[in-house]
């Protein structure tokens, strides 16, 4: 009797996260509510005027396919589908952050599908796609900071809870630069109120000089700047980029903090305030 009860209890728990079935209703409604809140905030702050009917947003059954968001045109309306597969390797909070990032691509940037990203890379180059990703990261982080009370540490803790998902086995320069760009952009955002500064780095100058070059996109203009980072600091970041699971959160966060402090990006005065 006891044996069968134990087996059932454990079997139920283990099957919950591993079976190919519908995602839990509670998670579904949490994610949809987050999308609704995010949309309301974007509209209220006048970052965009578009909305998307929640009834046209679906969280699909678990699928092993390699996609996160898919948008289909069905007659005269669009339907958006999210693949909950990420939930198997990350926390619910991380899943929500990824969903908001993808949703920003759809609602604001009009880059919903993988093919759209490929077209942007073909037509405008990888750096432009990195910038589009960094902008989506920026707005999601701004929403989490201003509406959900996220601190910088809480943001990176949530990110850390999903690092396994997007882990690369080797350094792809442009993806690494996009990772560094997000760190610099988001940490500058958390350190300052009312800034809109998207930072796109190039690590190429590090091979000859002790600095990296960045393009900074502000609301008013774009400018070119230099951040005092050395090859040593870059190697530290390479470690957390390639092997994040070798670190506990304290060490991981410390590396991000050290890199940001060294870059002086949080206190750059050349970046003027919006207000």
């Amino acid at each position: 009797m006891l044996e069968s009860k134990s087996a059932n209890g454990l079997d139920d728990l283990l099957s919950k996260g591993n079976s190919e079935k519908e995602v839990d209703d509670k998670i579904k409604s949490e994610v949809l509510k987050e999308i609704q809140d995010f949309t309301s905030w974007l509209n209220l702050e006048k970052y965009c005027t578009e909305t998307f009917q929640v009834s046209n947003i679906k969280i699909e059954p678990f699928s092993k396919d390699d996609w996160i968001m898919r948008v289909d045109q069905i007659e005269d309306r669009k339907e958006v589908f999210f693949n909950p597969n990420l939930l198997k390797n990350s926390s619910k909070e991380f899943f929500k952050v990824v969903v908001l990032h993808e949703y920003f691509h759809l609602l604001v940037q009009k880059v919903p599908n993988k093919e759209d990203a490929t077209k942007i890379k073909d037509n405008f180059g990888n750096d432009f796609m990195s910038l589009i990703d960094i902008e989506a990261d920026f707005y999601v982080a701004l929403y989490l900071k201003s509406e959900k009370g996220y601190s910088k540490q809480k943001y990176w803790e949530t990110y850390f809870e999903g690092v396994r998902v997007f882990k690369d086995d080797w350094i792809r320069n442009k993806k690494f630069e996009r990772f560094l760009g997000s760190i610099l952009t988001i940490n500058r955002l958390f350190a300052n109120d009312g800034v809109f500064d998207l930072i796109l780095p190039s690590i190429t100058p590090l091979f000859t000089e002790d600095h990296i070059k960045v393009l900074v996109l502000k609301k008013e203009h774009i400018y070119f700047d230099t951040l005092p980072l050395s090859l040593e600091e870059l190697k530290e970041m390479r470690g957390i980029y390639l092997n994040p699971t070798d670190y506990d959160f304290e060490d991981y966060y410390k590396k991000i903090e050290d890199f940001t402090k060294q870059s002086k990006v949080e206190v750059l005065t050349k970046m003027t305030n919006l207000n």
Partner: protein
Amino acid sequence: MNDNEKKEVVKNWLERNQFFNVETNESIFMVADGISHRLVVMLESEENEHFHLEDIKMKTLRSGRQLWKAHVEEKDISWEIL
């Protein structure tokens, strides 16, 4: 201290130590995800003295998780990795 109170202590410990997706049901088992590994936690309780540990280990292993046994006393937990 009943099993539910013990599970609350374990849940708090897991969340403090960067585990997420902590879930349980009416049984004495819990599951949790960490960055580099995923767990099945089995509470030490009078109930599990009758369990076939080898079966539980096998099920846990097949799910790609580690089996940790938690002995809870007040706010303290001693862990045994099985």
